[in-house]
């Protein structure tokens, strides 16, 4: 299936809470029908971005294009195509049935409601007979989350945005949410954007990942971010003192640049054919986690060097040749000049 326009194109988006900049996106495309993962720590701007994608929050500056058309006024037409499941979804003080059909009633689409609620409840693993007439307060956290998801799925949305959908649910619910979300994409071509701290779960469902740090987007997925304080050494280099006293030498930043990023491709493992002794930051750490990318079958490994996490990406062959496994001690390195500042 080919699409001429991406589902979303964000251009020069800036957003502030008070004087603090919370989003700073120069350019972002999200393909129609894709499943995109959003990775970032608390307060990084994930929820703000999702609200914007849901047309629930207008950016202070910049343009949002939906399927090639600029959406500056957030028209009702476009808002009915997109739906967001928040981290703590609010269930209306009504029955499960009433909660699920709320969006349909807004759309004045009230045909065969019972049959449709039955289908959607079964998609999220809930039995119609047992759940449809329960009150909102008679549900567990996982059940409430699945009812909220069912209320979105029944709308057959063009875009489904999920903000931490499995943050407070058990493994069974997490599996059912994954299955139901994938079914939406397979059945109706729904574009999915999912934010989650559970990287294992996120990598198992998403085709591509975007990481976000202090409102800045990294379309290649999770990267190694080094934050201050830094010390200036000479004219062309900055030093980050490591917890164990070991210095990291980084090229000097430009004006107003505060944080450094080292791209996955620029982090080398020993032995790798590279000389990790001259002019390079050489670090020892252990593999903390490994994730398999669903589409490329590449392995994203997180290496913990004291309190810093370094992220690298390997082909299955490379991972095999290094014999990587969680807990293994390895030596890695990067050149000071490969550091990018933002």
């Amino acid at each position, binding site marked *: 299936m080919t699409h001429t326009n991406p589902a979303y194109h964000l251009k020069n988006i800036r957003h502030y809470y008070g004087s603090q900049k919370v989003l700073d996106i120069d350019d972002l495309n999200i393909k129609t029908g894709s499943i995109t993962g959003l990775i970032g720590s608390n307060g990084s701007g994930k929820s703000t971005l999702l609200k914007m994608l849901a047309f629930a929050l207008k950016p202070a500056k910049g343009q949002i294009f939906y399927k090639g058309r600029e959406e500056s006024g957030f028209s009702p037409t476009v*808002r009915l195509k997109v739906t967001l499941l928040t981290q703590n*979804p609010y269930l209306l003080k009504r029955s499960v049935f009433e909660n699920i059909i709320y969006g349909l009633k807004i759309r004045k689409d009230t045909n065969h409601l019972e049959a449709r609620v039955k289908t959607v409840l079964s998609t999220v693993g809930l039995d119609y007979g047992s759940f449809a007439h329960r009150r909102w307060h008679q549900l567990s956290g996982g059940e409430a989350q699945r009812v909220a998801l069912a209320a979105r799925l029944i709308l057959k949305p063009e875009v489904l945005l999920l903000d931490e959908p499995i943050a407070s649910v058990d493994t069974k619910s997490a599996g059912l949410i994954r299955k139901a979300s994938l079914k939406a994409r397979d059945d109706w071509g729904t574009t999915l954007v999912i934010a989650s701290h559970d990287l294992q779960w996120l990598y198992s469902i998403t085709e591509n990942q975007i990481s976000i740090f202090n409102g800045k987007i990294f379309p290649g997925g999770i990267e190694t971010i080094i934050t201050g304080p830094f010390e200036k050494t000479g004219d062309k280099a900055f030093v980050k003192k490591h917890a164990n006293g070991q210095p990291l030498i980084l090229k000097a930043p430009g004006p107003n640049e505060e944080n450094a990023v080292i791209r996955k491709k620029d982090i080398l493992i020993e032995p790798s054919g590279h000389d990790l002794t001259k002019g390079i930051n050489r670090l020892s750490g252990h593999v903390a986690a490994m994730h398999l990318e669903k589409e490329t079958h590449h392995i994203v490994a997180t290496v913990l060097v004291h309190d810093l996490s370094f992220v690298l990406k390997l082909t299955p062959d490379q991972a095999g040749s290094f014999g990587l496994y969680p807990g293994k001690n390895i030596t890695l390195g990067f050149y000071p000049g490969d550091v990018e500042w933002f």
Partner: protein
Amino acid sequence: MDFIVEGFFKALELLINGDGSTWSAVLATLKVSVWSLLISTVTGLPCGFMIGYFDFKGKKQLRTVLDTLLALPTVFIGLVVYAFISRQGPLGEFGLLFTLSGIVIGLTILAFPVVTAITASTVEGIDPDLKLTLISLGAGKRHILTTCLWEVRYGILTAIVNAYGRVSTEVGIAMMIGGNIKYHTRTITTAIALETNKGMFADGIALGLVLITIAFIVNLSLSFLRKQ
């Protein structure tokens, strides 16, 4: 102690036998409390909702004024309303003094801040995720407003019950504006005050029992509505 027990049984007798003055006070109380509650709800509920829902300049100051009005002394309301509706007052020509309508005006002034302030607090306490949830389900402004109102229905019921509690147990306004005229403007509370002064405990207790029963029925209805 004996006279209290004796009074209680005499009270039951008065109620069962349909004593005219007792039931006249009950009806007067029901009339003024229901009308004042109706008017204060119709006006106070939208005001409270708007104050709680929207952010505007001077909102904090308005809330302070409203909270102060919650503690408005009933005799002061009685005095002001009396001044307005007495023969020399600006509304004197309407002949409202010593009428149930006059009492309704005073009780409405008493209940309005209660309904408005509690509704505003309830609306201010709406879960911030509710609005986002409604937007994400496609709701427009009208649907967001009506759904928010429906979501806080229990808080609004509490506001109405609180206001009812204030108007049905009020003495000062009913006494000053109504004049405690038997078979005309005498309410349960003014009657209790009068009968107690006269040493007629049975009549006082009978009316007290009715007042408690009304309060019980109101709360029972509220509890039933909550379950729905």
